[in-house]
């Protein structure tokens, strides 16, 4: 991504900046890409008679979750089950899927079986919970509060997120979260088993080293300007639960609002 590419074509700028993600499936390869990127930047600076410095603004180990916790959690997911979706929920889901050209299949009605790890890691999403997961037994529970087949990281993924779909999904998630914590509070041997897996399986051959250098600091100034630009407008729409039962009610949105009747 070009962070700073100048102002106009006939003015060669004195400053320029680019932003890269160096993504790979394990720590050594990520480090290798990072080093390669630094070498290229230095070489480019030499070639063009400029100087260069860089800043690490984010990092993530590939995540690795704990089998003992996941197995306990799976039982609770199965006990709680997927929320009962209303016809309105399904109508919204199908209409959105249709609108964006995704497979029209509404909301999921069954829980997933415990995911077995595949033998081959093919690469995909990153989450900085990865760093935590290599320091102590960790899991991520996925709770059903959104619509399937959406592109991710964009407006369609926001559509359901202040509707009964998100509300019911969050309630279901909270049940599993509380139940799983109770399992570990009342069965201390499970805590021990989780650590046994962490020590003897997960970290048997892989040891955590942070991507952070001693001088790296959190990039806390990021998004400041972007956010300040919109806060005055967004403030007008902050939810006031003392006046409205739901945000949909406050916004005067009929649920669901769809372009035309969907089958």
């Amino acid at each position, binding site marked *: 991504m070009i962070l700073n590419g100048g102002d106009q074509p006939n003015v060669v700028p004195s400053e320029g900046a680019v932003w890269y993600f160096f993504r790979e499936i394990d720590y050594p390869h990520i480090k290798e890409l990072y080093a390669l990127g630094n070498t290229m930047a230095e070489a480019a600076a030499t070639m063009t008679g400029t100087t260069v410095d860089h800043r690490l603004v984010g990092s993530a180990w590939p995540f690795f979750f704990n089998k003992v916790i996941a197995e306990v959690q799976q039982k609770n997911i199965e006990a709680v089950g997927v929320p009962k979706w209303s016809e309105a929920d399904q109508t919204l889901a199908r209409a959105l899927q249709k609108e964006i050209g995704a497979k029209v299949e509404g909301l999921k009605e069954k829980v997933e079986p415990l995911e077995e790890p595949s033998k081959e890691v093919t690469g995909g999403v990153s989450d900085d919970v*990865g760093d935590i997961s290599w320091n102590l037994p960790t899991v991520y529970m996925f*709770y059903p509060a959104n619509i399937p087949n959406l592109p991710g990281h964009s407006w369609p993924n926001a559509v359901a997120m202040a509707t009964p779909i998100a509300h019911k999904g969050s309630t279901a998630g909270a049940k599993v979260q509380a139940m799983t914590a109770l399992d570990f509070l009342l069965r201390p041997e499970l805590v021990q088993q989780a650590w046994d897996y962490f020590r003897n399986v997960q970290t048997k051959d892989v040891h955590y080293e942070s991507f952070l250098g001693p001088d790296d600091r959190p990039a*806390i100034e990021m998004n400041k300007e972007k956010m300040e630009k919109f806060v005055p407008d967004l403030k007008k729409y902050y939810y006031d639960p003392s006046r409205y039962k739901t945000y949909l009610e406050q916004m005067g949105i009929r649920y669901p609002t769809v372009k035309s009747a969907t089958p």
Partner: protein
Amino acid sequence: MKKLLVLTGFFLCGAAPRGLPAQQPAQLDAFKKEAAAEVDKLQAFTQQIVDEIFSFSELGFQEFETSRYLTGLLEKNGFRVERGVAGIPTAWVATSGSGKPVIAFITDIDCIPRASQKPGVAYHDPIVEGAPGHGEGHNSGMAVNLTAALVLKRSMEEHHLAGTLKIFPGVAEELLGTKAFYVRAGLFKDVDLVLGVHVSDRFATSYATGKGNGSGLVSVQYFFHGRAAHCGVRAVGRAQCAGRRGTDGHRLGLSAGASAAAAALTSRDPQRRRPA
């Protein structure tokens, strides 16, 4: 503390038949049923958190309203809150209870640029044009964790269960910006396990690498410094490309720093980039 925990476990197992290993304390199922029923009673509380954070729509590192709101709720409900942890103004830790085990809940709270959208509307209709929005659903995770934490806190107090609950926000997850710093600051040193939650369209959990569809990364910004000039006077950098073959057989490419210099000195060369 360990002793206390064992004793508690023993006490709870008192009703189990003699001679059997302490696999399943008799009260466990009852406590879980009770917790689920209590979560149901908090549906309005859960809904309000979902809706409130949705309306704040704050980007990574700027989750000020969100964090103020959540820490306020937690303090009101008897949690101890430490703010500004790991040198991050919008990060915090909320704690309740004491002793082992220490169970941490974590979930992200930041949103996505340009994803503003009216909820419940099945076509693009932003609340504020061009504004950030919860286009990944990170507004719901804290509703899950706070609801569960409140119920657990009551349950632990009522049933005299030893243990500590900690709640962490995933600040700036969309930038992969904080959790390595949390680790470096030692925030998980005394924690026994982490139960993280993330919004999805599925109800699922996994272990190890899951379906093998994860990756890691470093996110790096390069800043080039030179002299300003009239176009055509200075030499123009050229975009070049380099790539390497990943262990998985996928070609993981990165465009070279030369294109960075091109960006530094001219903005004319299109950056050739391959998605990793």
